[in-house]
């Protein structure tokens, strides 16, 4: 029986975070990119919880609540911006948002 240590959780979180970051770089739909940001934030939460458990202190567990609240606030503003863009352009692809460049 292999013992699952905190290192495993930290590694899993690192993998999740990398998947999220990669998604931001390769996907072109604003909604999907936004979901990738959420994935990154959840990887952060996993890191906090695993580290808090391994260190035996509560700070890491409490931090998750703050990250969740911030993520919810970001969802509110982010979805509002995406909806505003979709109404005007009938598309949520960031490739069509190319007026500003140079």
């Amino acid at each position, binding site marked *: 029986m292999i013992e699952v240590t905190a290192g495993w959780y930290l590694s899993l979180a690192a993998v999740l975070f990398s998947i999220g970051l990669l998604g931001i770089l390769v996907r072109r739909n604003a909604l999907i990119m936004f979901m990738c940001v959420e994935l990154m934030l959840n990887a*952060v939460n996993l890191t906090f919880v695993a580290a808090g458990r391994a260190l035996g202190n509560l700070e890491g567990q409490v931090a998750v609540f703050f990250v969740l609240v*911030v993520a919810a606030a970001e969802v509110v503003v982010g979805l509002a*911006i995406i909806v505003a863009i979709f109404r005007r352009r009938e598309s949520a692809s960031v490739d069509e948002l190319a007026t500003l460049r140079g």
Partner: protein
Amino acid sequence: MTFAQVLTPPSVGWIAIAPEIVLGVGAALILLFDVQYKPKRTHLGLATAAIVATAFAFAIVQYDRVQTLSQATADQAADFVATAFPFDAMIVLDANAVFGRFAMLLVTGLGLAAGWRLFERLGARAAEGLALMLLSATGFMFMASSTHLMMVFLGLEVGSIALYVLAGITRERTESDEAAIKYFLLGSVASAVFIYGVALTYAGSGSMNLLEIQGVLARNIFTRPAVLLIGIALMVVGMGFKVSAAPFHSWAPDVYQGAPGGIVGYMAAAAKIGGFAALIRILFTAFPDFISTWGPLVAGIAALSMLLGSTVALVQDDIRRMLGYSGVAHAGFILTGVVAGGAGTGEVWFYLGVYTVQLVGAFGVVAAVTGAATSGAGIDAFRGLSKRAPFLAATFTVLLLGMAGLPLTSGFVAKFGVFTEAWQAGYEWLVIVAVLASVIAFFFYLRVIVAMYMEEPVDEAVAPPGISVRASLALASLITIVIGIVPGPLLSLAGEASPL
């Protein structure tokens, strides 16, 4: 044992967060009054200015308190800890935080006056814009004054989320929503990277309090500090995004070009003050002994920012994009002071203070010439500006020369300060890169000045700027010249501003 003995309340030092309380409550009151009484927009603007002025008055009281604290004797030690580190040491009342508030509130006041035309154009939504501006200032001020990484993150998010909304606050133009989504997506990635850095730092050191982290690192020798080092690097990268340092700058020119003209100067300046305040606090308070590790990383980012910002700005035909890339270069110049460690704090703050004032003033001129609610500002609109609007052309010239770092302007003293610090810290190569970059940067500032004074005017008449715009532009230019000739008082004020 009674209940009161078990539960000791945390030390609450309201004075340490008084300016933030004033701004936050003020923002809420503005929204409420707007809903209930439908006041005139001018009255809302004056109320906002009064709120900023009240917060500034509290910051002056805090400065006085910090002066008293610095002379505290040994038997006042307990009192010192309670006053300087209230809220269980999550907030700190020190010169670094107070100088951050001075800079932030000055920029907010100038930005409000210079961009007033935008709030007039917003109509019924003026109160929303004003409240968001105050809220973002609250968040960025918390970034300067907290000693806990979770608090820094919350300040960062309060400030940034308000700015995402402000970037897209005009409904008329499509460039504005494009700027908002770009700022939002890249900004939230930056926040996620920063908070992942915080999580790894916590995993590596066992605490999120900067003072405790420093204590832990000083007491223990880490045999495998990899998690901690990655954490520090990710926090630097996250803040690099916020202050638009290369290679994390790609959002800045787009947002500066697309966001409404009246607010973009404030947006750019506020994010820079908040980001650098937190960077100084994190690196100098928690990781002063790791300077040999983060120093080269920061130096690399600084060199890349200066070279890339200066050269790409040369080929821009939009003044706002040009100022965006020049902002990338300036982030590099300020980071040149950061590599010197704690010794360079005063010079970094001085640079930050004078540059953000110039930035708000310059965008104020751009908004006055090309409109406060529109996107973009082609260089054609500035041709022959000296004949059409001599006052705007003169103030723009002063502010651009200040950014370029011409002697007798505040920019020269600021550049000289950070270069000296970096040289003394052993980063000679970085100073050589920085001087080269300043020479390149001179050309694109000069190009705008030549267009304003030497070229034939276009037919478009410039609407005469309002009294608030004229006052803020005159003040920004005056600060640039006066600080350039008599830098002593501000240098000594900034010199005190090192984190506890």
